[in-house]
């Protein structure tokens, strides 16, 4: 494979598209499939076959707005329809070439509440536009240009330089500069190096990685191959949750296709560069999102973390230098190499460049995936894109960063999103879950929910996390039952500090964050539970409010 051959494939893909005047894309992501978008596609196909128009019906990955599924996108007019039923197929096909289908069927609203205005798609640029199992469609949209460019025109050092220039930071949560990480691994000497893609998206309430893997798997493979070239690795592992069967299936096909086209294997692009990727299935352990635990899991062991240093960059998988990045980080690599690091650093804020995909969920009008430039305010994302809180309820808090993050109240809605701004507000970027809560959510219960999560997901290796999370959970439950005293609250705060400071890995170190952030912004709710035996949101049920406080004596 060389530049010319790539262009030929791209040209052939264009030619294939030119055969049709219209393209009807049907979302076949997990969200829409659960609403039988396969039946919608079959109906549209049947309708298109007999209509006499040159129309191509295509299966695509996630289009983002899961709340309005099944979604259909009509090109070239870029008209999107939500809540499409199989019965709507005639209206959609009849509208091709004319006005949008809402004239024929008022239920089909092409505006979808302005969800897509204000978004900027880099990672999701192909999602909803290509068939995820057809590599040529990816190539037709500029895919693998970056890999061929890197292999034929650039040396590894200049690839790393572009990534450094772009200012890309790890999208898995930590926000470590990707260029620095690559540079570190490239400088370590070793006969065998590895590239690992972390697709163990364990954060409950986040599904960016699943969506990218389902909708545009080639993009991740290309990013990994470029990384491998830059650091000198020959073997890669894609670690995916077993809970994402569709993503695993599409990745398996994508890897086979990439090998067939010669982007994986030996002598890629007529150079001496060899690289191949294997899939490894996770088995349902949140802690495996931590890099050393993930490595243990790939080695076939229990996923327990180990102290760092040595960092995986020096001693990772089987003791070899290893580069680990998140799915979304790898998905950003190809566009950076294609357009140059400066293009990427032109987006976003001073220290957080580019765009970020968020999973907007919870008590919000339009749930789904959004990709926005860094620096956008929470208010813009939640109210303008997401449509605000439904049912006339009042916004109370937004939770970012999963179980390691925090809840931000209304006064922080004008916060511009960046790694540093979120941390200083007591939350964190995390992998990109954004869960909106209204006034029916009790913040103490939410803190308890996250603590329960950390308690059950704690791997048990270090004491502060294993024992501390249990104690904190018990104290929070006590508050929720209305049996706690101020001493319990003090002890909870104290435990938060100890567990955060002394745990071995990120799970324990950040487990207190949901408690700390709710204590910081919603202390009055804690106090209402303790002093007044009252739950302001009306969620907690108190066994009996009149019960006298009994002191337990331990012999």
């Amino acid at each position: 494979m060389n530049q010319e051959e790539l262009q030929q494939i791209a040209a052939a893909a264009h030619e294939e598209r030119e055969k049709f005047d219209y393209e009807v894309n049907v979302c076949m992501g997990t969200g829409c499939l659960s609403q039988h978008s396969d039946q919608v596609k079959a109906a549209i196909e049947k309708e298109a076959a007999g209509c006499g128009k040159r129309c191509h019906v295509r299966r695509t990955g996630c289009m983002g707005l899961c709340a309005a599924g099944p979604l259909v996108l009509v090109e070239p007019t870029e008209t999107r329809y939500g809540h499409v039923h199989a019965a709507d197929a005639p209206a959609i096909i009849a509208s091709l070439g004319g006005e949008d289908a809402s004239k024929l069927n008022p239920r089909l609203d092409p505006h979808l509440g302005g969800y897509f205005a204000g978004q900027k798609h880099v990672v999701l640029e192909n999602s909803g536009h290509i068939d995820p199992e057809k590599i040529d469609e990816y190539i037709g949209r500029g895919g693998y240009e970056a890999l061929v460019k890197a292999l034929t025109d650039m040396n590894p050092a200049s690839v790393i330089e572009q990534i450094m220039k772009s200012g890309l930071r790890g999208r898995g949560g930590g926000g470590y500069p990707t260029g620095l990480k690559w540079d570190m691994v490239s400088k370590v000497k070793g006969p065998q190096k590895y590239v690992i893609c972390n697709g163990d998206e364990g954060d409950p309430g986040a599904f960016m990685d699943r969506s990218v893997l389902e909708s545009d798997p080639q993009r991740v493979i290309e990013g990994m191959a470029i990384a491998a070239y830059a650091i000198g690795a020959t073997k890669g592992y894609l670690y995916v949750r077993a809970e994402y069967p569709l993503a695993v299936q599409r990745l398996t096909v994508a890897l086979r296709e990439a090998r067939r086209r010669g982007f994986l294997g030996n002598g890629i692009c007529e150079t001496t560069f060899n690289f191949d990727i294997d899939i490894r299935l996770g088995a349902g352990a949140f802690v495996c999102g931590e890099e050393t635990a993930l490595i243990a899991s790939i080695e076939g062991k229990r996923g327990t973390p180990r102290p760092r240093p040595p960092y995986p960059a020096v001693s990772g998988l089987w003791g070899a230098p290893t580069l680990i990045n998140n799915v979304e980080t790898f998905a950003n690599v190809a566009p950076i190499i294609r357009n140059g690091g400066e293009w990427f650093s032109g987006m976003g804020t001073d220290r957080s460049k580019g765009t970020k995909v968020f999973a907007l969920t919870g008590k919000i009008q339009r749930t789904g995936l959004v990709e926005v430039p860094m620096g956008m305010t929470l208010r813009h994302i939640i109210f303008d894109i997401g449509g605000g809180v439904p049912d006339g309820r009042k916004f109370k808090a937004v939770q970012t960063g999963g179980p390691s993050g925090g809840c931000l109240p209304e006064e922080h809605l004008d916060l511009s999103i960046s790694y540093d701004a979120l941390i200083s507000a007591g939350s964190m970027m995390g992998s990109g879950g954004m869960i909106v809560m209204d006034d029916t959510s009790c913040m103490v219960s939410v803190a308890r929910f996250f603590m329960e999560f950390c308690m059950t997901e704690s791997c048990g290796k270090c004491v502060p996390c294993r024992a501390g999370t249990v104690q904190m959970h018990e104290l929070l439950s006590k508050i929720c039952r209305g049996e706690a005293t101020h001493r319990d609250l003090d002890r909870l705060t104290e435990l938060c500090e100890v567990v955060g400071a002394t745990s071995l890995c990120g799970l324990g170190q950040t487990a207190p964050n949901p408690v700390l952030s709710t204590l910081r912004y919603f202390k009055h709710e804690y106090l209402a539970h303790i002093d007044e035996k009252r739950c302001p949101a009306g969620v907690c049920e108190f066994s009996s409010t009149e019960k006298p406080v009994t002191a337990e004596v331990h012999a």
Partner: protein
Amino acid sequence: MPLYAERPPLPSDDKRWRIVNGTMRKHGYSRNALIETLHTVQSSFGFLDVPAIKFVANSLRVPLSQAYGVVTFYHFFSLKPPGRHTCTICTGTACYIKGSEKLVAETEKLLHIKVGQTTPDGEVSFTTARCVGACGRAPVALLDGELSGQMEAAELKTQLERWTTQ
């Protein structure tokens, strides 16, 4: 003596063991194929019992303690056979905010079992999931592996009753 002579024979004539063996062969009977092999056992048999774990451990020359440790460490692996039908309710954050707790309570009441148990007649297994990644459709339930979004207690009840009264 060649290495393969030390490998234990397949536990039975069941064809599924050949699939399991195939996974191990694909990885060259390497120790780090333990999790991959256990995945194959679970997807072929539905669960992992002690003879199966012993067979895999012996074939890959992994200490039985390590194999058992791995099986019990990861939530995805189950030591108990599943019921004829499975009901899994997602308890991720988005589903929690949208009231998955009520669905769990409702299901427990309806089936008279707790999370993680199977009804005595072996009809329905009830589990919860940490997050199935369909947060845009919360609250979510997986009924016999099929995802249903925006689940309501009444709808879930109808489905479960269909299973239990059959």
